C-alpha cells in the first residue's frame, strides 16, 4: 500500500555528470516494494513545479530500510531535487505501480537496459540472482562517458555486456542487437527491458514474433501516479485501433508483458 513519507537523505552521490544517486531512509516504503515499483517525489514545497516526479527504484536495502533512486537533471524539477543535501527530507509517495517484474517461474533470464532506463533493472537483477536465477545483462549507452554502474551490475548478474553506440567502450552498437544475436545460441526464458522507446519496441517486436516472454517497463507523462487522473494511458494490444482501450502506466504498470501493450 502506498504511503507518503518525508524520508531523510542519508547519502548523495553524483555518479556521472548530471546524474545523482540518492539514498533515503524509507523503511515503510522499502518493506512493501518490489522490483519495478516506482516512487513519486514532490520537489518543491510550493506550487511550481507543480506535479510530483515519478522516479524508478534503483536499490532496496531491506535490512537497513534504505531506498536508493537515481535521476538525471532534465529540467527544473530534477534540478531542484539535485540541490537537496544529506540530512534534508524528501517528500516521497510509494511504492507505486501494481505491474512489477516477475521472475519466479524462470531460470535463465535476459535483462536489457539503455541509458537512464537501466536503474530499475538493478533491483530486479539483484533479487533474481539471489534466488538462483541465471541473470544475463545487456546495458547500452551512447558513449564511454555515459557508461555507469558497471561494477554494481557486475555484482548482481552472471554475465554483463556493456555496449556503446559509438564503440568507445565495450561492444560496439546497440545492446538490443547484441541480445538478439546472442539469442541465436542462448535460450532466455524471459527478457526484461527498460530504456528508450525504440529499444523497447524492438524488444516487443522480437519477443512477440518469436513467442518469447518479455516484460517492459514503460514511461508516459503522469499526473497523479496513483491511478486516479488516468493521464498515463498506454494502449491495450487486444483493443482495436479505431476504438482503443487503455491501461495506465502508474497503476497497471509500469511493467507490462510486452504482448499486452502497444506503444
Amino acid at each position, binding site marked *: 500500500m502506498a*504511503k507518503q513519507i518525508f524520508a531523510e537523505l542519508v547519502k548523495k552521490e553524483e555518479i556521472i555528470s548530471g546524474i545523482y544517486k540518492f539514498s533515503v531512509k524509507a523503511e515503510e516504503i522499502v518493506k512493501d516494494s518490489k522490483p519495478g515499483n516506482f516512487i513519486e517525489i514532490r520537489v518543491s514545497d510550493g506550487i511550481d513545479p507543480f*506535479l*510530483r516526479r515519478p522516479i524508478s527504484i534503483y536499490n532496496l536495502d531491506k535490512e537497513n530500510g534504505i531506498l536508493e533512486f537515481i535521476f538525471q537533471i532534465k529540467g527544473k524539477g530534477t534540478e531542484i531535487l539535485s540541490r537537496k543535501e544529506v540530512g534534508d527530507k524528501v517528500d516521497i509517495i510509494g511504492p507505486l505501480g501494481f505491474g512489477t517484474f516477475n521472475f519466479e517461474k524462470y531460470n535463465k533470464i535476459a535483462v536489457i537496459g539503455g541509458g537512464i532506463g537501466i536503474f530499475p533493472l538493478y533491483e530486479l537483477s539483484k533479487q533474481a540472482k539471489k534466488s538462483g536465477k541465471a541473470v544475463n545483462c545487456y546495458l547500452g549507452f551512447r558513449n564511454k562517458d555515459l557508461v555507469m554502474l558497471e561494477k554494481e551490475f557486475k555484482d548482481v548478474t552472471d554475465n554483463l555486456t556493456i555496449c556503446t553506440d559509438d564503440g568507445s567502450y565495450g561492444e560496439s552498437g546497440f545492446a538490443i542487437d547484441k541480445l538478439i544475436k546472442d539469442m541465436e545460441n542462448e535460450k532466455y526464458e524471459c527478457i526484461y527491458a527498460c530504456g528508450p522507446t525504440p529499444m523497447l519496441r524492438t524488444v516487443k517486436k522480437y519477443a512477440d514474433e518469436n513467442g518469447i516472454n518479455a516484460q517492459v517497463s514503460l514511461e508516459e507523462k503522469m499526473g497523479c501516479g*496513483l*491511478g*486516479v*487522473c488516468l493521464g498515463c494511458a498506454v494502449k491495450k494490444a487486444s483493443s482495436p485501433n479505431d476504438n482503443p482501450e*487503455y491501461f495506465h502506466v502508474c497503476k497497471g504498470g509500469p511493467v507490462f508483458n510486452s504482448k499486452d501493450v502497444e506503444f
Partner: protein
Amino acid sequence: MNTKVNFAGIEMKNPVTVASGTFGYGREYSDFFDLGKLGAIITKGTSLRPKSGNKPPRVCETASGMLNSIGLQNPGVKYFAENDLPNLRKFDTKIIVNACGSSIDEYVELCKILNTLDIDGVELNLSCPNVKEGCMAFGNTYEGVRKVTSSVREVLEKPLIVKLTPNVTNIAEIAKGVEDGGADAVSLINTLLGMKIDINTRRPVLANNTGGLSGPAIKPVAVRMVYQVSQAVKIPIMGLGGIMNGEDAIEFMLAGASVISIGAGNFIDPYTSVKTVEGIEKYMKKYNIENITDIVGTVEMN
C-alpha cells in the same frame, strides 16, 4: 464551531469536497485517510456507456498547474454502480456523481439510472473541454444550459448541481441558465482550455493538441467567476479552481461559494483535502466564526 453546510439539500459535515476526475471513485485515496473526513466526494465523470478516453500523452505540467485531455475515460454507470459505489458507500461522506453525456437524451437516460442508486446528488458535467460531443457544447450558451438542465430536472429525483465551463464570455448569464433550468446549485469552474507546445518537436505536447488547465494557475479566474455568479443567481455555488489549502478555500467562500472542491491539489499531496478542512477550522477559530455558512459571500468590494 459549526462547519456543517446544507448544500442543494445535501447535508455535509463540512464544506470540503473533492472534484470530479481528481479523486477517481475514492479507492486510491482511502489508502491515505478516512474519506469520512470530507463533506462530499464527487466521482469521476461517469457516462451511460464506458468511454476509453483520448490518446496519450494526456497530461503535462505547466506553470503552477497542469493541462489534461483525459477525454472522460470511465467504466460507465453500470460498472460504477456494481463495483465502485458499494465501496464508496462504506465511508461516512456524501456521494455526488458527476454525470456526462453527448446528447440530452443520454443525460436523461443516465439520470434515470442514477435515480435508482444510493447516491446523494448529481453534478451535471456541461463543461468538459476534451470531448467532441456534448458537455461543453451545451455549456457555452444560456439556452443550451437551460435546456439540458430542465430536461434532466424533469426526471432526476436527486439534488441537481450543474458544473460550468469558464470558457465563455459571460459566466453570469450561463449560470442563470442553470437557475432557470431548475437546478439546485451550480459548480464552477471546470478547466480553462489551454495548449502547450514542445519547442523541440514543434508540436503540441498533448495528443489532443489542447487540454484543460487546472491548478493554482487558474485560481484568480475562478474566484472572479464565483463572485460574478454569486451576484447573478440565488442558488448556492460550489467553488473550485486551484484550491490548495484552507486560505484558498476561505477566499472562494468569501467570494460566494457555499462549498468548495479540491481538484488538481489532490495529485501533489493526497492529504490536500483533509488539510483544507483543518485550515478552514483554524480560520474560524482565529476570527471567532461560529458557523462556516456565516462567511459565504461576505466579501466587501472596494
